[in-house]
């Protein structure tokens, strides 16, 4: 029920250099400013990108939170997939997974289509 609070913290981190600095210096104090469950605190602190994704954090917030932790794009996508396996489907919001062949397969298919055109 405190997804709003999780997202607000990530929003502030993404937007505000001072919050980022405080998060680096005294993470627990920053986490304490928000009304979070233990599961949420754990997911943020680790960070468990897969769990945050399943909790319903909007991808437009989450991808920058991942980047803040130097998690590269492909790794970010992979961690969300792992989250789905570990914790089940996305519980809230509109960023649910719907199934996809993957960029490489998709690229190959498009290329084949172009060649037969």
């Amino acid at each position, binding site marked *: 029920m405190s997804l709003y609070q999780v997202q607000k913290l990530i929003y502030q981190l993404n937007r505000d250099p001072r919050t980022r600095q405080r998060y680096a210096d005294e993470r627990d104090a920053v986490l304490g400013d928000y009304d979070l469950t233990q599961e949420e605190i754990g997911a943020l602190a680790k960070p468990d990108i897969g769990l945050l994704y399943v909790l319903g954090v909007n991808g437009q917030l989450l991808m920058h939170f991942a980047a803040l932790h130097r998690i590269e794009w492909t790794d970010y996508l992979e961690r969300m997939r792992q989250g789905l396996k570990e914790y089940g489907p996305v519980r809230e919001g509109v960023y649910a997974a719907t199934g*996809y062949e993957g*960029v490489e397969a998709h690229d190959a298919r498009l290329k084949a289509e172009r060649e037969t055109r």
Partner: protein
Amino acid sequence: MPLVYCGACSHAPGITGRAERADTQTRQALETAFRRMGDEMRATRPDALVVIAAEHFANFFMNNMPAFAIGMADSYEGPIEDEAFLRIRRTTVPGNKALSRRLIETVMQTVDVAYAEEWKFDHGISVPLHFLTPDYDLPIVPANINCQGPPLAPLARAWAFGEALRRAVDAVPERIALIGTGGLSHWPATPDSGKINHEWDREFLRRWSANDREALLSYTDAEIYREAGQGGFEIRTFIAAAAAAGGATGRIDFCEPVPIFAVSCTLGSFELPPAQQNTPSS
């Protein structure tokens, strides 16, 4: 005076941030098309460019989420994202506070727009400007439609916003260009990033080029979500641009699915009557 240019384009962060991961030929064709769009737009000698964007929590959050917003400042900063992530240098972009205020006052007669005296551009504006106004020498009036955090305004209100902007633009003496920028079908920043419903995009663009109001507004959000993903909510920006074009029909200059950029990269513009491009309004 009447709008001098009206178009729409993609803004996916991958276009700059993951540029080298796309097929070279496709990438070059896209960048060429983007630059050509910029040339065409600037050839209309605009005094300012209104950008109808769909930002991604750079400025607006669920603590106070406006359906529609317009910037009202003399300068803006962007991109807010890590420069290495987006590969666009952070810079100050000129605005025009007085012009923004005049536009806002007219828009407010019919559409309840929030105004914003500061605004950090994210990739939703910074990617288009990187190609369209690479010297950042044209004053920007940023506008936003909430396409991220439901409840979202219905498509009919996005249309009303475009119409209101057109009335506002026509009422000022300046020469104004306008672009909408958003993705069509896409599932960005999810494990399905790269998924594209190109058939759906083509049908949407058919309606858009025809400036078929009824067909454009007939989508429901449930249908968009199912067929075009949460990223598809951004068609609101294309719809507002169509409304601002005031019935003019459009031309698709580029439309290719690029999975690593997560969208059908799209560029299009409306054929405004030449009179609107060159003569002052009565």
